[in-house]
């Protein structure tokens, strides 16, 4: 068996044997699907009273995926804990003693945690989509899975969650502390966008489109986003780049420092 496969098996056993990871995954599913359904039900109930502009820009696909905004926090915590829990408990010493080259260890972690968050992300995105459409049905226009752009939008939502997990893993590896890494992620995902919202419109449009949250919002609708935002595929490319930068920074520090 190759080293990478052995280390992936070890990571899989680690992931399954901790209650904290299991609960984070449960939280991910419940918040994303549950809150998404709640928001969809609310939207459906108030549809008849909503403004003309809201009705004109109505995107039933994107609206059914509103839970993602909460799920991304759970998946960020999962990615951070995947590595920082090893530092706080000392497990990292056992892990590195078993894989002293270190790079394969982090790659195995990224594949296992990225893979798990992708699988669960896709599952909950499709479930949320169908729940949302059934709740809108009879109250507001709905979309069908075969409509143009719908599968892309739903699948990219799951992909977005997996990429947030990898960004979190990279940042967690670079910073090594749970609180610091989660603060950094909340800053990038939530605080920065609201800071940008206070900027003058021209400047705001120029920088806001680079925020992961905004890219997710404009990639996960079946309707194409406004012109000053990135299109779905460019957005995906940028998110991949962010994940690669975060993982690269984590790898750089991980292979050089004492554990």
């Amino acid at each position, binding site marked *: *068996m190759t*080293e990478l496969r*052995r*280390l992936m*098996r*070890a*990571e899989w*056993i*680690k992931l399954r*044997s*901790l*209650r*904290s990871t299991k609960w984070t995954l449960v939280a991910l599913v419940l918040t994303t699907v549950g809150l998404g359904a709640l928001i969809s039900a609310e939207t459906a109930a108030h549809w008849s009273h909503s403004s003309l502009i809201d009705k004109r820009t109505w995107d039933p696909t994107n609206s059914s995926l509103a839970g993602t905004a909460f799920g991304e926090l759970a998946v960020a915590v999962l990615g951070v804990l995947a590595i920082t*829990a*090893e530092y706080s*408990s*000392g*497990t*990292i*010493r*056992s*892990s*590195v*003693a*078993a*894989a*002293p*080259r270190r790079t394969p260890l982090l790659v195995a972690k990224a594949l296992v945690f990225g893979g798990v968050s992708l699988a669960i992300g896709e599952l909950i995105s499709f479930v949320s989509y169908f729940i949302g459409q059934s709740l809108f049905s009879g109250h507001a226009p709905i979309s069908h899975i075969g409509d143009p752009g719908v599968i892309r939008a739903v699948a990219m939502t799951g992909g977005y969650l997996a990429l947030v997990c990898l960004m979190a893993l990279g940042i967690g590896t670079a910073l090594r502390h749970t609180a610091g890494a989660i603060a950094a992620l909340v800053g990038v995902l939530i605080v920065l966008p609201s800071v940008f919202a206070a900027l003058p419109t021209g400047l705001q449009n120029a920088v806001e489109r680079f925020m992961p949250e905004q890219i997710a919002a404009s990639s996960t609708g079946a309707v194409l986003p406004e012109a000053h935002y990135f299109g779905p595929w460019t957005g995906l490319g940028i998110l991949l780049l962010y994940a690669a930068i975060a993982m690269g920074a984590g790898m750089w520090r991980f292979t*050089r*420092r*004492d*554990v």
Partner: protein
Amino acid sequence: MDAIEIQHLTKKFGDKLAVDDLTFTVQPGRVTGFLGPNGAGKSTTMRLMLGLDRADGGTARIGGLAYRDLPMPLRRVGALLEAKALHPGRSAREHLRYLAASQDIGDGRVDELLELVGLADAADRRVGGFSLGMGQRLGVATALLGDPGVVILDEPVNGLDIEGVRWIRELLRSLADEGRTVLLSSHLLAEVSVTADHLVVIQQGRLVADCPTGQLINDDAGTVLVVTPQRDRLGDALTQAGAAVEVCDVDSLVVSGLTAAQIGDLALSARLAVHELTPRQTSLEEAFLELTESLRSTS
């Protein structure tokens, strides 16, 4: 079996030299005690052997290879480090299982080790609830998981009861008798002198002594250290004169039963050269304890 070869090993933490140009070899087939006061650099040296810390100079090799170049390192080297290296939320079995998976070792070996260290009944309990002694037993199981030829244990008897201490001693003895390389650290000479065949003593990151245990704990005040280029001939002459002679090094002897003056006269009449003739007022054990005490009082 593999030897551990340390050459000019150096490690700095900021400006402080934790390990200072350390050179020694740990041979297979015997228990080597790694001795020094707390803070002498023992744990750091062990972490450097395992590639957990990066050396600022020199090398630590195991069977001729740097640790990071061992393809499945836990099958060659097993280690129990002083600091905790496991997650409190995982069970003992799961801790061993993921390490086993990383080295392509079957789960059967995991059960075998849980049995060996006496944790079979506690195997599925979370290790967060383990006593210090149970934690050490799990640490020993971790070290032996890959049936390694080299076993490194940092203060393994900490937290063990008398029965546990005896168990560790017998285990280390049998590992060395099987031909394995066993390195055991401690800050207490009395503790390692029972088990170790050979001692490496460091202080402030530097080598102080590297010699057989018998030599270091020979506490007959009144022995004389003799350095001579004709070691064997002088040794025979002294033995014939009724002295007890212990070979210490290629060119030195430890002699008891004769005074330094008598040894000097005897060497002259036998026309043998003597380069050094030092009566030992205190044993090395006393010297070691004094060293430990003086460091403790200054820190």
